[in-house]
């Protein structure tokens, strides 16, 4: 699920618990028995992932539909 965006805006958010800035990191995305990895903003310490809105409503929604019709 490659995206053109470099998520500059999302990377200004900080993990509230660890009080650390977010970094781009590999995360696993799973849907309907399909799994793949992609880069998203996440907390380097606790691993919490922030899914950007543009990704959720764009590429993710598209891939969800493709997997649902598979």
């Amino acid at each position: 699920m490659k995206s053109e965006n470099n998520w500059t805006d999302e990377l200004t958010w900080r993990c509230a618990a660890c009080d650390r800035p977010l970094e781009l990191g590999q995360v696993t995305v799973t849907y309907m028995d399909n799994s793949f990895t992609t880069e998203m903003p996440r907390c380097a310490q606790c691993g919490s992932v922030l899914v950007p809105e543009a990704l959720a409503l764009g590429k993710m929604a598209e891939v969800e539909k493709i997997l649902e019709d598979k």
Partner: protein
Amino acid sequence: MDKNELRQWEQRCIQEEPPACTAACPIHVDVRTFIGHLQQGRWDQAWQTLARIMPLAGLLGRICDAPCQALCKRNEAGDAIRIGDLEQACVNHVEIIYRVTKLPSKGKQIAVLGSGLSSLTVAWDLVRKGYGITLFEPGETLAVSLTNQHRTLDTASVAAELDQLEKLGVSFETGAALHSQSFLDDCLRRYDALYIGLDGVASPEWTLERDRSGTIRVETGSHATSRSGIFAGGAVFSTIWQAAHGRWAATDIDRFAQNVSMTAGRDREGPYESRLYTSLEGVAPLPAVPMAHADQGYSKAEAADEASRCLMCQCLECVKVCPYLEHFGAYPRKYAREIYNNASIVMGSRSANLLINSCSLCALCESVCPEDFAMQELCLQARRSMVARGKMPPSAHEFALEDMAFSQGDDFSLARHAPGMERSSHLFFPGCQLSASAPGQVEALYDHLNRSMDGSVGLMLGCCGAPAFWAGHAEKFDEALMQWEQQWEALGRPELIVACSTCHRMFRDHRPEVPVQSIWETLEKVGLPGNRAAGSIQGTLAIHDPCTTRDMPGIQATVRRLLGRLGVAVSELPLSRETTECCGFGGLMQNANPDMAREVVQRRGALSPDDFVAYCAMCRDSLAAGGKRTLHLLDLIFPEPRTPDPADRPKPGWSRRRENRARLKERLLEQIWGETISMGPDHRSIALKIAPEVQSRIDERRILIEDLQQTIALAEAGGPKFRHPATGRYKAAGRPCHVTFWVEYAPTSDGFEVFDAYCHRMEVGGP
């Protein structure tokens, strides 16, 4: 669906049936395509269309006697299209070039006797199939009878066609001494089969069985004579029939020579009655275009004018009235095939999922189809099969099914006798959407019913199971009805009064033993309350019948009488009563394909400039959401003083619809039965401030207030969340079920303000 069922479905849709002209043509010339090319000025393509079917089209096109015209649909609106004259015009105005493909030689030889049209056709058809052909003509000139009989045929054009035959490899022997039995015997020795064209030759010398008139007897259907290997035909007056005899005899000879079935796959040979239906609604009668010079036939311009009168016969009755069927670009026969293929895909995309799930199941197609094709049954069957095989896209109906579960749960579900009563003569079941849209009207109705019916009306809040039925969840639907039935039994099986025509249909079709009447029938019997709003209605209201009343003419009539009693001036929509349209909510279209639903409701709203009056809460709300000013009939009967313009009332959002139901139950319990109930889970007490534009965006994304409350509660209780240093806002995610909700929020003095929310179905985890 198995192959047989597919064929039955396909068979029912008549869009691909040929037009009457083609069906009436003995050799089935594709007249519609031919004329379509003429309409567009594509003369060469028109010629190619003729030549694809017609043998020696440069000849037959000049003399075809066009029996098709008698069946032309234009007959019913002016004159039949002059198809024969258009064929002549085409042949006259184009450069005749044949694009003939010839099969490799079969190593077999056929003798053709006579040079009438049937003989020339046999030669034309068989030489292209790879047979060696020798044509014997007793006279000195070929096809002389044709040029003698038809003034439209000149020697040069006949010669060109014969030349064409010769180029293909046909040998001609003129002056042949064929009037003897020995000639036939000799032919049978030298050739694999023999054709006698009775439109050109006949000899009393031939010892073949004859009929009473002395004509050689020919088997109907096989053109065989009494002697094996000898075929005959063409003893007809009509030119196109002579050609047809030649064509069929050529098929007979080919099959005879190859020793294969003489009959297989030939059931539509010759004229038949087409099942194609073509509506003449709105077709102005037009006379045939005259010829300036009858002896020269149509000029190009005249032919184009005449062609333009052609109706291009097709059915598409359902597609014309249904934006959904139109949207997917084909018609039910094609859709049946796509749906069948969709189920058999092992790898790759199931591209018909959206087609299957977008149908509103409203049955308008069935009601306008001359053959009763029921797209809704096809789609519902497919949905059930998808659910059963675990192939239903989860996003298609999940939101609606969760809403249904809400209605069945403690937040809304309720079944009681009227206070102080031990039994109920009737049971009022308002359904989930009226309660969601206008809970005050449910209260007013229940009050009115009990006042008018001696306080013997019980109340049941809940769901009839329609969303599960529409979603193809057969088991869930059964469970819903069983849950309902248990409550109904416990109340002593009272007669049901329903306020929703969908509920009405569900009970009628799936619980026929339950006595059920519509609230409109009840109100007509018990009378309307005193303080009605009808007097304040200005202008005329167009009646919108819910699609679920399609086969309930009694209810449609009752509603019209009630409107009459209310003194409201009404108008009828062009598609109403048994041909009414869905509002876009039916069949969960709105869930599976919101864009489609928007298009449907906007098209519906544009049918009349009048405000609409609906008598289904969901129709009312969908139309209002589509920008159409729409009243509910109950707005006229139980006016709400705080809503002076109910036609302008917005559709309550999804969260409000749930809250309205829960509050309705709470109020009814408190005010009628004097009971109080708890608010439900703690998170529901979290106060949220949401700007209207954020609220409508969230609602469109089908995110409920409760989803936000749950997510915030989780984050504030120590769950993961993110903080924006510049704005001080938080962002957190919650996944109560199959969807992850993201909320951007900030604390306020008494709760939280929500700035944004979005969701996704995928699960996101660590590396």
